[in-house]
């Protein structure tokens, strides 16, 4: 056995002779140092539900949240007619009934049914609002040329 092997064996024996609780303390300290060095570890562990929007594209900012497009729950314009038109005598809306476990896990999407008066066909709620059509130049001209002294 060489001198070097002797020194290594001696070191190994000393490590084995240490108490188990002392080794756990060292392990905890090492873990704390790791957490302090990387703030994102703690942030990820806490998992905030609504993080503040980032003000600058730094690495500390949760860019993943802001860069993703907002999830659209079935836009009204593409709602199938069969789902939006309902006879007046139909039973109450599903959203009005107690939520099932699967519904309680996910926020309910805003749909025409949820804002339509009970018993009223939903087609009224989904109709495009009628705005006054701007007059054409011809209509404006017709109007002004029809002016006569009182």
């Amino acid at each position, binding site marked *: 056995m060489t001198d070097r092997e002797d020194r290594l064996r001696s070191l190994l024996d000393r490590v084995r002779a240490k108490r188990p609780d002392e080794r756990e303390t060292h392990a905890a300290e090492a873990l704390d140092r790791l957490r302090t060095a990387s703030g994102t570890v703690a942030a990820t562990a806490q998992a905030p539900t609504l993080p503040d929007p980032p003000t600058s594209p730094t690495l500390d900012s949760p860019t993943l949240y802001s860069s993703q497009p907002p999830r659209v729950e079935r836009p009204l314009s593409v709602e199938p007619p069969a789902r939006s038109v309902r006879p007046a005598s139909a039973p109450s809306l599903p959203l009005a009934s107690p939520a099932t476990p699967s519904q309680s896990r996910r926020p309910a999407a805003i749909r025409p049914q949820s804002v339509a008066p009970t018993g009223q066909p939903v087609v009224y709620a989904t109709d495009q609002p009628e705005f006054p059509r701007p*007059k054409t130049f011809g209509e404006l001209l017709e109007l002004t040329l*029809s002016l006569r002294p009182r």
Partner: protein
Amino acid sequence: MHDGRFDPSGFYEFNLSEGMVRTRNGDRVVVLSEDVLSSLVAAAARDGDLTPLRRLGELLGDQVLGSLDRPASVLSAEAVLGHVSAVTSLFGWGRLAFERWGAALVVTLRDKPELDEDELGAAALLGGMFSQISQRQVSCVPTGESKFIMVDFEVAETVWGWFKDGADLPAIIGMLETKRAS
């Protein structure tokens, strides 16, 4: 076809060898100084014959019609205004805009050449231009402050008389009412 906006590029063609300036639809035009034009218009107004200026307005109206892809009557007022104001500017007649005063359509023409005190030269030009654009007999009567009310030619003299008697635009509007054809 264009996208609905007026395209001023290449509007004038300068032929130096022949000494001519033409618009892009072939009309020959002559560049005049404001002073010369002013004296000509003043003389025409004194004689009571503003036909040449009305004819010039019709030529401007032709330019507008040539730039539209549909009849002006079916277009929005904003679309027509874009073309009319562009042509008016290209001929150096100032900044044109529309105003609605109740049922009345009012044309404003700011920064126009100073021609005659009563603004009858500009009125004749605008009347000719909008008559050509709309294919109707339109009169633009001066009501002060570079505003011209657009009315049927049959009531133009009456409205002009009100203005000469001191009525301003709101008063003139108040003395008019809409009468639809039965």
